[in-house]
């Protein structure tokens, strides 16, 4: 009963080295794939692509572990892990991606949630600059910011 991953409780497994299935699949819980699958996958739990699994599909899932090959667009609301044997080509939309050493990934990663700390340059001013800003008039704030952004300029009296 106890699998290596305790989180994966009900793991539906599709096996068959040369089997190829295609279509639109809705899996309520988790699934492990050890064959070739194409089409569309909607997984309610964890998608595990085994080391013999080849998936060419658009996937919506919570978590994903890729030990085989995956090609397509994936949206994962949970964690995505590309294992050392995993090969991924395509785009992944997730907030949590791990690529292990040896894992292969070509594609784009985008976030589901907006992360303002990355999009907006988190640039708290230097203490000295802050003191200056306090003494300066509020309208000069933007100018002060420009100065900060610019590569050192000569300041004229």
């Amino acid at each position, binding site marked *: 009963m106890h699998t290596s991953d305790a989180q994966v409780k009900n793991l539906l497994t599709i096996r068959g080295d040369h089997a190829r299935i295609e279509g639109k699949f809705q899996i309520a819980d988790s699934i492990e794939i050890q064959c070739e699958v194409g089409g569309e996958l909607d997984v309610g739990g964890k998608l595990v692509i085994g080391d013999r699994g080849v998936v060419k599909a658009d996937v919506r899932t919570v978590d994903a572990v890729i030990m085989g090959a995956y090609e397509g667009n994936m949206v994962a609301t949970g964690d995505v892990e590309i294992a050392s044997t995993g090969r991924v080509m395509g785009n992944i939309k997730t*907030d*949590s*991606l*791990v*690529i*292990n*050493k*040896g*894992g*292969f*990934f*070509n*594609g*784009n*990663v*985008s*976030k589901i949630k907006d*992360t303002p*700390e*990355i*999009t907006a*340059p*988190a*640039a708290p001013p*230097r203490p000295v600059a802050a003191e200056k800003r306090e003494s300066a008039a509020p309208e000069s704030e933007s100018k002060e910011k420009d100065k900060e*952004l*610019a*590569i*050192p300029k000569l300041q004229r009296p």
Partner: protein
Amino acid sequence: MLRRWQRPPRNPKPEITEAPVVVAEGFELGGKLSLNRPAIVNGRLRGYIQSTSHVTLGPSAVVHADISARSVTVHGMVIGNLTAEESISLETGARVKGDLVAPEITIGAGVCFEGDCRMMSPASWAALHAISESSEAANG
């Protein structure tokens, strides 16, 4: 012993040593950094880093720069494209927005990454890019 305190030689080619260049926490740098020895950045940096060696961005690093190096390890924050001849490693706590190009890329748990990931050498990526651009030009 005294030689150490003499002025640097006229020869502009710097001596390759393994002593790292450190941008300490609290420092702010702007412009282009060309390096031939390992670099550790813990401060703020804006511009461009080019290195023939390893570049490490510490947990407190805030870097707005494209980085091109032999290998890059990131613990801090980067907005910019990272290109490495050997490997790129985004460690726990790293926040990266930009494209990664390296034959070997590892992303640890708890890393915030947004961008393209190309696992190939920068040379082959440039070649591929040139091909796709020329074919686009031919089609257009």
